[in-house]
């Protein structure tokens, strides 16, 4: 579904991604872990070209999205993204947050988009918040709405950039539950996270990144219980106290 070939990204002199090769299969849940500054968020943001790769190729559904002249907006429709800071649109109601992209990008009718939005809101139990504005909602509620806002575009893959890092601890669970639910439905997901519990329970594959490279990867069982690379061992020792 997504193929990444020798992906490099530099910010000025800073070499953040140093040649990443990776293939993400349809329906797979890939969890990316690693110390901060290792390039995992940059890797994720390159996948939908929020960061422009310095070199290398990214192929989504046999289309090379790093080619010049590709309609990137069309490609981004296929890839939903959830941010650490939620990034709901504060001047729009919850309903409008969800319907704006389907109506403006896919030219869906307002009524059709609202029906889809209502179905999604029911799924996360927030149908009574349809007319609220984001600032009235808790962080957990905002992030769940950010997830279904992306789902309203019916993406083929969902990218999560540390979706629970900005949340109060008691709200982490409700967001992870929505994500687990999504994984169970067979959604292809790439998740950058520090939630090792989520990685173990839901991940099909875990990638360990450090210093701009994928140093080790495997099933959660392999990676957490029998890490081979000394850097992985060191990292896991520090966080799994």
């Amino acid at each position, binding site marked *: 579904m997504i193929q990444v070939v020798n992906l490099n990204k530099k910010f000025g002199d800073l070499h953040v991604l140093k040649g990443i090769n990776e293939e993400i299969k349809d329906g797979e849940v890939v969890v990316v872990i690693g110390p901060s500054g290792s390039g995992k968020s940059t890797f994720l943001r390159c996948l*939908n070209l*929020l960061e422009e790769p310095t070199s290398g190729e990214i192929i989504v559904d046999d289309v090379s999205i790093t080619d010049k002249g590709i309609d990137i*907006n*069309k490609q*981004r*429709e296929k*890839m*939903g*993204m959830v*941010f650490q*800071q939620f*990034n*709901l*649109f*504060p*001047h729009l*109601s919850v309903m409008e947050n969800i319907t*704006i*992209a389907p109506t*403006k*990008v896919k030219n869906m009718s307002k009524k059709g988009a609202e029906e889809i939005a209502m179905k999604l809101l029911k799924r996360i139990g927030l149908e*009574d*918040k349809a*007319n*609220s*504005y984001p*600032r*009235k*909602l808790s962080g957990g509620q905002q992030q769940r709405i*950010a997830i279904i*806002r*992306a789902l309203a*575009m019916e993406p083929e893959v969902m990218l999560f950039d540390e979706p629970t890092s900005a949340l109060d601890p008691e709200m982490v669970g409700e967001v992870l539950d929505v994500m687990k639910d999504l994984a169970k439905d067979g959604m292809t997901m790439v998740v950058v996270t520090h939630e090792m519990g989520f990685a173990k329970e839901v991940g099909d594959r875990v990638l360990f990144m450090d210093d701009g490279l994928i140093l080790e990867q495997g099933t959660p069982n392999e990676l957490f219980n029998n890490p081979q690379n000394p850097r992985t061992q060191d990292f896991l020792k520090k966080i799994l106290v």
Partner: protein
Amino acid sequence: MDVITELIEFISKYYSYYINGTLATLQISFFGVVFGTILGIILSLLRMSKTKIINIISTAYIELVRGTPLILQVYLVYYGLPMVLPMPDSRMFLGTFAVVLNSSAYIAEIIRAGIQSIDGGQMEAARSLGMGYGVSMQFIIIPQALKNILPALGNEFVTLVKESAIISVIAIPDLMYNADTLRGITYKPFTPLIIAGIIYFTITFTLSKILGAIEGRLSASDTSSES
């Protein structure tokens, strides 16, 4: 010698100067605001362009306009422009044109500051949903920016009404010019100018009250819908 009766006498004799002058001032200010804002939005977008040459030209324009006196710009447009470009032979047009050129530079900077005050995550979220740059600007960034800059923009509109008095130097019969004419006719130093001052103040005060009310309503739209 009653001040009040003298004043009434003065107004009843010369009121048409004030009415015509006020209309001219309102007309110049209105076109200044409308076209200044349109040109200002375009300029601010050009200034934020990634194409270097467009960026340099628009930045240079904005800096030059903001760095020179309005009176100089009015003279340049009035005396200079018709010599190099075919221009309508109308003081009113050329005077208003100078005001528009001037206010657009200030408005462009206000709008740019407003757009840049919006968190970068907003644009990223919009783009990640498949919305193009233009659509994201129109529905996500500019509505939020406009709300933030309304006080500054209102301030600029009020300034524009007052600054438009400068165009009296090219003999456009606006409020300032007519008041000054009356000063010459009547040899009175105070009365004609004070009446003009009262009219200017009434216009700007009303304008800032109206803008304040709009501001209040816009910020209410954020908080009114209770969950």
